[in-house]
């Protein structure tokens, strides 16, 4: 999340007919605000988060707060006012601004311990998810909030982990993606083992701890592409289809090489993710 938050008022003063909240997520509890109302809400083109909750002032609702959800398949067209001079009827009154919060679960502290992740030896890297929401200031008949096909070029993989005898992991946002291709190439001079998982996060039923990230637990880690040993120069293509493999929150890639690799460059991965079902 960028500080200060992008200001919707600045968009109005600048003469824009829309406000775009385009920011990186920091925690699953991130809530963003807008002091501007809107004639339509939609997921922005760059968003990794697929489902976003929108909260707004509605005196007819409990706590004067009403909500709806938007996604790449469902925008919201209708006038929603931001009521900064009114307060939500919450225990600690807050102004009736429009609020945004990701509806998808995000856990930056996720570790694939069930898959043998070692806190000591392994390395794990995250593609930080982007939250992109657009507010339109002029009336629109309808919106098709198509997200772009996200492309990731991963050129550096710590296939021996932190300590030189571990495993490298990379986590890529997968929320709402319905198809994609993963192209793995081994440019090392030694064999490289590659595995691809789909990870679905869930809310923990553990009530014995205070509300925290402990409530977000991993419920599913499905193997999408079984361990594949690539000889030097080898290329492996995996095609992801939601209808075949299910839908996930993360794609998790595991890289392991049998010997010390030096700088870590050499294993490349090219990923394209799309909202179009194949």
């Amino acid at each position, binding site marked *: 999340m960028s500080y200060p938050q992008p200001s919707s*008022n600045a968009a*109005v*003063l600048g*003469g824009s*007919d829309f406000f775009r909240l385009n920011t990186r997520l920091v925690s699953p509890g991130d809530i963003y605000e807008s*002091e*501007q*109302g*809107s*004639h339509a809400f939609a997921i922005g083109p760059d968003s990794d988060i697929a489902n976003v909750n929108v909260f707004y002032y509605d005196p007819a609702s409990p706590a004067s707060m009403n909500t709806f959800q938007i996604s790449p398949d469902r925008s919201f067209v209708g*006038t929603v*006012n*931001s*009521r*900064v*001079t*009114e307060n939500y009827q919450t225990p600690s009154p807050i102004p*009736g601004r429009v609020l945004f919060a990701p509806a998808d679960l995000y856990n930056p502290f996720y570790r694939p311990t069930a898959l043998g992740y070692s806190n000591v030896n392994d390395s794990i890297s995250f593609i930080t998810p982007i939250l992109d929401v657009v507010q339109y*200031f*002029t*009336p629109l008949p309808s919106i098709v909030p198509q997200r772009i096909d996200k492309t990731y070029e991963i050129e550096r993989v710590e296939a021996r982990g932190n300590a030189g005898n571990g495993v490298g992991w990379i986590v890529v946002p997968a929320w709402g993606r319905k198809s994609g291709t993963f192209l793995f190439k081994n440019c090392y001079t030694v064999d490289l083992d590659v595995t691809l998982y789909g990870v679905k996060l869930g809310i923990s039923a553990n009530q014995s701890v205070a509300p925290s990230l402990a409530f977000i637990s991993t419920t599913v880690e499905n193997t999408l592409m079984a361990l594949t040993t690539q000889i030097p120069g080898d290329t492996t293509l995996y095609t992801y289809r939601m209808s075949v493999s299910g839908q996930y929150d993360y794609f998790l890639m595991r890289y392991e090489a049998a010997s010390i690799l030096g700088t870590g460059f050499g294993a490349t991965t090219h990923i394209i993710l799309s909202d179009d079902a194949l």
Partner: protein
Amino acid sequence: MAMKLPPNIAKIANELSAKNKEQARSIDNPTGSTAATRSLPTNKRLQADAYDYFTVPGDTQLFYSAEEWVQISIILRTVGPVAIGNRGTLTPVQSGKGTVLVTNEPLTMKLEKGTRLYVASDAVSRLSVIIIPIPATSEVGLERETLNQLMELNANIKALAARGAR
């Protein structure tokens, strides 16, 4: 190649252009900084005005005070909500004490001299404002007199041109 006017016609044309405000402006550079434009007789009280106004959320504020009869058009360019009315207290914005503007739909009113408009909003909003003065009858008469003089000059030019052609 520009046509050279006979001296007498050029003189009349200059007189005509000096009387015609728009033509005088077009002769000078568009910055309006030439002596001819500066000396142009204008009635600032009758000048139209257009500007953008940004509301400040919170209490009711004075929006416009009509020093003359005017026609005012207000267009909400964003979402609002913004209320406009004659009362000094319009809040809560959607209470009905003022009329709530609709995005991109102009609200046009004729304001009597001395009328005050107030605004209240719940969000920073952009309003486009166009003010067109409504001249008094005596001022309309003056304009007619000027028009008559211009028509007379125009007839003179035509007559001279016809004489020159012979």
